[in-house]
């Protein structure tokens, strides 16, 4: 349906944001005491919970053990109540498997796995409510959880989606925009060095526009990283106050 006007003549998007504005990001770290690390992150109406176990000894098949670094095991799932219509199968479908794989690749690039040879790090992410940008929300939540678990990383991994409408890149797409036939690109960035951990795009886009799109995505990721940094500092402050007493 081409009926939706994703970007009005005055530069507003459907939900009132301008092209480069992100959705509101709210996050908490250390939501579960049982796990080694956990975090809850909301980006607009997309809400995710990430839990990290490890690093610990390899469980299950020992054959997968790597002698020089840790294995990262990711699992992505969506709650049955996360979408407008109840989901039948919360995990294990092809989309989830693919998403798990992407998460794994992202974190293999960011976590300093060589510090933990012959061990395993488990990252479980669950989408509680889905409103577009599931991948980036998962990455951001998992970053916080990994930090909460005290696992050394090269840098924060921050992810964001961007779409391309009317020759303008739109940052952080919501579901309505994603489903409106926009060619979108997901990018996970290590912001300090500007290294790209993962870049994914399934849609068609003219080569000439790719650069502007990546630039916009990087700017958006840096914006996310600022928010995450603040959350981590806030959390540390709280924790250090507690431990001091």
């Amino acid at each position: 349906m081409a009926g939706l006007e994703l970007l009005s003549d005055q530069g507003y998007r459907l939900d009132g944001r301008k092209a480069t504005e992100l959705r509101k990001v709210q996050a908490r770290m250390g939501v579960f005491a049982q796990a080694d690390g956990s975090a809850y992150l909301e980006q607009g109406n997309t809400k995710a919970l990430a839990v990290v176990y490890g690093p610990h000894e390899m469980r299950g098949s020992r054959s997968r053990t790597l002698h020089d670094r840790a294995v990262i095991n990711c699992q992505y799932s969506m709650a049955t109540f996360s979408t407008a219509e109840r989901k039948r199968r919360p995990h294990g479908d092809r989309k989830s498997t693919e998403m798990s794989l992407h998460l794994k690749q992202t974190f293999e690039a960011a976590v300093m796995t060589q510090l933990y040879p012959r061990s395993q790090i488990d990252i479980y992410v669950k989408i509680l409510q889905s409103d577009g940008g599931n991948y980036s929300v998962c990455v951001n939540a998992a970053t916080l959880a990994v930090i909460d678990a005290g696992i050394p990383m090269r840098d924060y991994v921050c992810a964001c989606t961007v779409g391309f409408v009317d020759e303008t890149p739109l940052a952080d797409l919501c579901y309505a925009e994603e489903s409106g036939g926009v060619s979108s690109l997901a990018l996970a960035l290590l912001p300090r060095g500007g290294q790209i951990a993962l870049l994914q795009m399934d849609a068609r886009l003219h080569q000439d526009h790719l650069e502007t799109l990546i630039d916009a995505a990087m700017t958006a990721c840096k914006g996310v990283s600022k928010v995450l940094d603040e959350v981590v500092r806030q959390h540390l402050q709280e924790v250090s106050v507690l431990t001091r007493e």
Partner: protein
Amino acid sequence: MIKTERILHLKSCRGRKVRVVREHYVRERVPCFSALCQADCDNDGKVLPGDLTHYVVPDVGVVVDYLEILEFRELQGIVFTQTACQAVQHSKGRRQYNRLRNLLKDPRHDCVLFANEFQEYSYCPREKGESQEKWQTRCVYSAAVWYHNHLAGMMDIVMITEDQDAVAQFSSLSSGVYVVSVQDYLSNFWMELHAAHELYNSISQALEEKESEGTEKEYTEHLPSEILEAGIKSGRYIQGVLNVNKHRAQQEALITTQASSNKNTDLSRDVLVYGGKNRNRAVHGDVVVVELLPKSEWRGKVTSLTERQGDEKTGEDEKSKPMPTGYVVGILQRNWRDYVVTFPPREATQSQSRNSQRILAIPWDPRIPKIRISTQQADALQDHRVVVRIDSWESTSLYPNGHSVRVLGRAGELETEIQTILIENFIHVPPFSEAQLKEMPVNSPEKPWKVHPSQVASRRDLRGTHLVFSIDPRGCEDVDDTLSVRTLDGGKLLELGVHIADVTHFVPEGSLTDLEARSRATTYYLADRRYDMLPAVLSADLCSLLGGVDRYAMSVLWELDAHTLEVTKVWYGRTLIRSSYQLHYELAQALLNREDTEVPELAPLSPEEKDAKLAELTQALEMLTHVARHLRAQRDRGGALELEGVEVRAQLDAEKNITALVPRQPLEVHETVAECMIYANHWVARKIQKTFPHQALLRHHPPPRQEFFSQLVDSAKARGFTINTSSNKALADSLDRAVDPEDPLVNRMLRMMATQAMSQALYFSTGAQSQEQYYHYGLALDHYTHFTSPIRRYADMIVHRLLTAAVDLDKGLSPAVALATNKELEETTQHINNKNRAAQRAQKLSIELFQCLYFKERDPQTDPSCVADAAIYAIRDNGVLVFVPQYGVKGPVYLKNRDGEVVTVGQDGRCEWKTGSVKRYSEHISTTCSSGTSTFTLFDHITVRISVQPSRCHADSLNLEIISNKPHKSAESQQPHSQGRSQLVQEVVRQAEEASQQAQERASRGPRLSKEEREFCQSKTPNLYSLLEEIRELALMDVGACRDCFMNIMYTFYS
């Protein structure tokens, strides 16, 4: 930014209701677009002036139903709310929404859009149980209050609504914000704007009518759009544009399918929709969805000729072989526009309407169904032409409902008819506004315009070095192209130059004049007047490259090898020129022929000087002709086509009455000028395409579809010629061979048929087409654009800007203004193409109008000029189609009338009507009756009598009646092609003398007339317009290209 949430209930694709939560961000700073803003809003773009008495905030209902009233330019300070715009988008569809968007974008309208739902203080969330309408009204009201507060109470805000409850509820709530109904608003603030009042009454009446509709169904309901889309995807339905047959408007309509929407190759042909029930309320031009009928119900198109009045007659007509037939199941996109209708006289009104307020008005365009109008002015409007709009067409009503917008005048009057033609072709040409004229430079005797010193420095100065001259039709005032030619390097090199008026220097991109020019896209030439694209100060003075004055120009200079004529160097850029001679075609030709002529520029000189100058000029002309011949030959080898149009010139006397219809003669110098222009266009196209591969404006001419050539091939076979249509070269060659020495008309008619088979040449943006599609079939060039007439074509102005940017880039400068992107350019080209088509149609219609006027004054029975020679060019079931070369008229001749009588030929060739039968064969048609059989073959010459068939509701048409099967005796002498070229020249000169005599007479008649002249025929003799008719005939060219060298079009596809 503050985040809130909005809960919507939407339907899912499976039809279930889904609760959707959407985020909604509101912010404090939303631009208000008012000059009075105290808070430093980020107001870029249009800004409402601060010196108005009030701002108007229309309610949702008003915007949805009464948008037309808000379109009046007199209404100022309109603030559209986002709520209202979205409501329009949802309830009225994309077309109406785009109209609103254009209104908002148009700098000539004083209105802005306020994003009220994203403003923190004007946003009001919808309450539980609140109806949508109430909520929308509340939103609009709160936006109005916000405006009042934001502007610190300095501006009164008037909210207009149709909701009486809202008036009662809100009117006393806050001071400074007034809530009134539309009617009160109009009568309080715009007493004098009668047009708005009338429009308001007419719309509200139409709305009332809609509510009181009956319930009996006349048509089946349309299917919902989801089903249609699914059906199109699955191939069950076919999508296409409805095209109503002009001659059988009530019965036959074709669906022209788009190639993308139908995958079945056997359905690549069009689909026939037969009868009103099957058409199911679709109107000509709508995008509709059809379902095919079972094969047993398929039928063929009626191929016999029908007379206008005989619309109802169906049944025993012979049919062509059955073709896919279907019925309309739904309409995807209405394409309603403004229609011109005629109100029937009183007696007809009463008989067919239940209450006297409803009138069935008959549209001028026969393809449009009658429109039901509710009005109280029925008596006053009898026999008047009125502009109406269709509002709706319910399944319960036999005819669509509409409302009247504007009265044009009494039917049959010249002014009314011209206005009708303009409106029917969406041509809107108001006089240039004050603000637009203010942008123009001044050139008056007190304040003469001068060349600016900074421009002298930045431009290449050709005033001293080059002999520049222009060749145009006699009396031309807007000279936009000049030529120069000289030898370099002691004769080793030739330098050819084409210098075009630098219009874009005076019209910066985005200025009001530019916007107006863009919306007009071209200068419109009608039979008796013209509407300029640019204000006269530019088109006739400062941009016009007149003789003896300094002017800015854009030039292309080629250096050619003097012998091989190979291009060695090309230079593009801005220049400063002074044209030395302003020649006209006849004079230039006379100079070439070495005849004794007087060049006005040389008159004051002494004889020796004169001879030297004359020799110089003549030599330049000869050089030019030499080069042009070479270029022409080059293109001919590539396969350029020579096609034939109907070329007739209407000779008008001082009162603009047609005194004669004269065929025009070509001169070689026309060809020379045209060839140089084509060359310039070609090279500029190459340049801009190379510099901007994705966003250059070019013009292409797609190869014609082979099936269109069938008539040409078949007709040629009748005379024993074979036409090879495999390529443009083959076609050109075989057309050259198909010459009947007995009858030169045969070749002309074949060329005419070839022309009709051609597709239309179009502008496009290089980013939107693949490289192979750049080819220009008619000119046989791989790149082509329009560069040489910026005064009357907007496309040329775009090309000028592109070329300037390209030249700047070469110099290492970055262009000052960002160029249009491919998408924007493609939109612009679409617009220009549409406008060009409209201009051609309007021109043709105005020519027909004048043809009818010409014959209307003559009694067909007695006046010899009403009897003419005609040649048969096509055969139909009950008659033949003929071409009258003398007047350039094409039309049907019936061999069988409605009483069943047929034409029989007597001993002396005279024709009579007798009972009998008609039999049609592929190459001839014969009539049989008691006294014998007579046969009419293709290309036969017959004599016809021309009379006017008056029509009250539509345009008058010409009626051709056969009176003899022998050629008309005086016909041969009027064949210009049988004469030698020198004779032709003499003929032209003689005509020119006559014309100048007329001009003298005109001058002696005093100032009243000359004012008229100035008004309507600003730059050339009125007669030329009619010539342009042939351009339309050729259908490939556009008006502008051909004006200055209009005769060449017979030779070239100069487009």
